[in-house]
């Protein structure tokens, strides 16, 4: 039983399988904004070959009671098939990808490349004055890399948001 007095915030990664119909994303986002829930990250893409179903991954935070409420509210939307709380249901893998543009020359440029190498970021575009790095990993890893690039000519960041899936044989 979630307690109304428990004010501890937790983060939850929730995956939602939905009918890939017009307005379904607006319905999910509207639910979050209308009821005042947080969205820390959101991704959506079709996941079936026929394009009939999409998977939405949402990273949100709140008290246990709020997270339970978010899941129940998502579950009652007509085009929603299944809601899974990956954080709660067991171990899971969560990854995101970022494209990071760093502009600089000389020592800074060399240093950026050296750090990118230790993070196993790939260089996907380069000019004499810039790099675009592609980095995949957990959110914290991306955050750490971007932090380091701040002093080395960080110019622009584009992130995908989190895609997540349960470990092992468990499926949605």
């Amino acid at each position: 039983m979630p307690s109304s007095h428990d004010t501890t915030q937790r983060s939850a990664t929730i995956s939602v399988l939905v009918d890939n119909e017009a307005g379904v994303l607006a319905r999910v986002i509207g639910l979050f904004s209308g009821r005042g829930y947080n969205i820390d990250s959101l991704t959506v893409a079709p996941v079936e070959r026929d394009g009939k179903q999409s998977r939405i991954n949402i990273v949100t935070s709140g008290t246990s009671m709020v997270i339970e409420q978010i899941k129940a509210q998502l579950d009652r939307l007509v085009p929603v098939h299944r809601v899974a709380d990956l954080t709660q249901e067991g171990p899971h893998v969560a990854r995101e990808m970022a494209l990071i543009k760093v502009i600089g020359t000389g020592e800074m440029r060399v240093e950026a490349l050296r750090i990118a190498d230790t993070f196993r970021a790939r260089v996907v575009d380069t000019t004499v004055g810039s790099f675009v790095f592609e980095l995949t990993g957990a959110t914290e890893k991306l955050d750490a890399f971007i932090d380091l690039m701040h002093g080395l000519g960080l110019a622009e960041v584009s992130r995908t948001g989190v895609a997540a899936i349960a470990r092992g044989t468990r499926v949605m």
Partner: protein
Amino acid sequence: MSAELIQSGAEILLRALKDQGVEVIFGYPGGAVLPIYDAIFQQNAIRHILVRHEQAAVHAAEGYARSTGRVGVVLVTSGPGATNAVTGLVDALMDSIPIVCLTGQVPTHLIGNDAFQEADTTGITRPATKHNYLVKRAEDLARVVHEAFYVARSGRPGPVVIDLPKDVVINPAPYTEAAVMHPTYRPQTEPDHGQIARAVALLKQAHRPMIYAGGGVINAGPEAAAALTKFVRMTGFPITNTLMGLGAFPASDPHFLGMLGMHGTYEANLAMHGCDVLLAIGARFDDRVTGRLNAFSPDSQKIHIDIDGSSINKNVPVEVPIVADAGRALAALIEQWNADPTPVETGAIATWWRHIDTWRAKGCLTFTQDMRRGGVIKPQYAIQRLYEITKALDREVFITTEVGQHQMWAAQHFKFERPNHWMTSGGLGTMGYGLPAAMGVQIAHPDALVIDIAGEASIQMNIQEMGTLAQYRLPVKVFILNNQYMGMVRQWQELLHGSRYSETYSEALPDFVKLADAYHAKGLQARTVDELDDVIHAMLACPTAVIADIAVDQAENCFPMIPSGAAHNQMLLGPEHEESGHGVTDEGLALV
């Protein structure tokens, strides 16, 4: 029928409605729905009721739905037609009323072009509906209509919008029959039997049990209300109803403690506060019911039955959650109650009833009516007389209300014995609901007595529907408790804002008798207590629509009252009782 039969979108639409058993549509024409109105003109199976404002069309459909248990149907045009309907849609969403609302839309090639009378109807109504559809091809039309009816009435019922671009209702397409099952939407209706057994085990060992039943029992159909009555009588437990649940249990039964909540009875609220096991059925722990959450029913273990999983553990954490249809769950409870050999705590429950009876003896709804000639009419007395006089008639009586003090007095003083006979805007609190809702009830029950208990402010929000009453000869009785104030707001201003009556005096009221006359109805007026009974009798005897303007005490407040931010055991009783003191905290002042 063969799937190859080609018809226009409008013909498909009407055929799908007919296949869904629709007999009546409440609507208002306009450019985008002309082809649909043309198809309506050429058939006789479905009756169209022309309202005077689209909001009223939705409320009328709500009244129709709530008094029949069927899906109410609305047809409005694009743009302003659809936006005017939005208040009605949210009202139906909050009160879980099954509605299918057909909205016209500009042709598909003009969508997004800021065309004449274009509005993003699916965008605007997304948070105002249970679900909505934009139909882009006539081929999809029949399937979407069938799906919409299924969604509207299944699970927790609600309003569904189907947005219909003009070309879609003109284009020809084949008809498709209703599918047996929706591809994905399958609400859980059967209770989990392990949870039912846990619930019964808790109830059997209860010393101070309490049952709290809401509109979900009414939505689950008359069998659910019958099962609730049976369960209460076999357990001997006390029961309260929410505003939406009135009629789910017979008010005359001694187990009934009256309505609970902000303007509920002293005995119902204190029993909620003091109980040790609380069984909630088809009710959602609304803020008007719970008062201050952290002081709500503090010592009870709670069982919550609701068809909507998101209503459970939303405001109040419960020990035994049961997602199910109220009727199915009650049937399972009855069966398990009989199967479980544990005896009930008879002695403790008898003591509990003695407590309740002392609270009851307080007579929290009493008021003093000056019966002398020329005495000012107390609003409670007007409703009490209306109840007593209509009860003595051998007629089926339906009551609708507007929103405010008169609504609460009606809930307190009019007694309901059966479900589906009380229609009020509970969740959204929509002034202007009562008259159009009464219209919808009267359409569904032409021979019944349908009364809108109104206030002089609320009634003016949809007064234009008097025209609809005249057109269809609907003998709805509008019973106005006229205190020349937006009474509930005035009451809060008195209690919370130092009696500064900011903008709540009903200035420049119409002469309601002349207004009735202008709308081909009968106008009546009672100014003093000695005139009241005659006016009620004249109103009830009148074969046409009536506006009865009842001048009531302007200063009367609605009690008991739990002030905002207070707990159930901190109720204010009226001037008849010694307790007083406002006890509103700063946090309470910020609540609505």
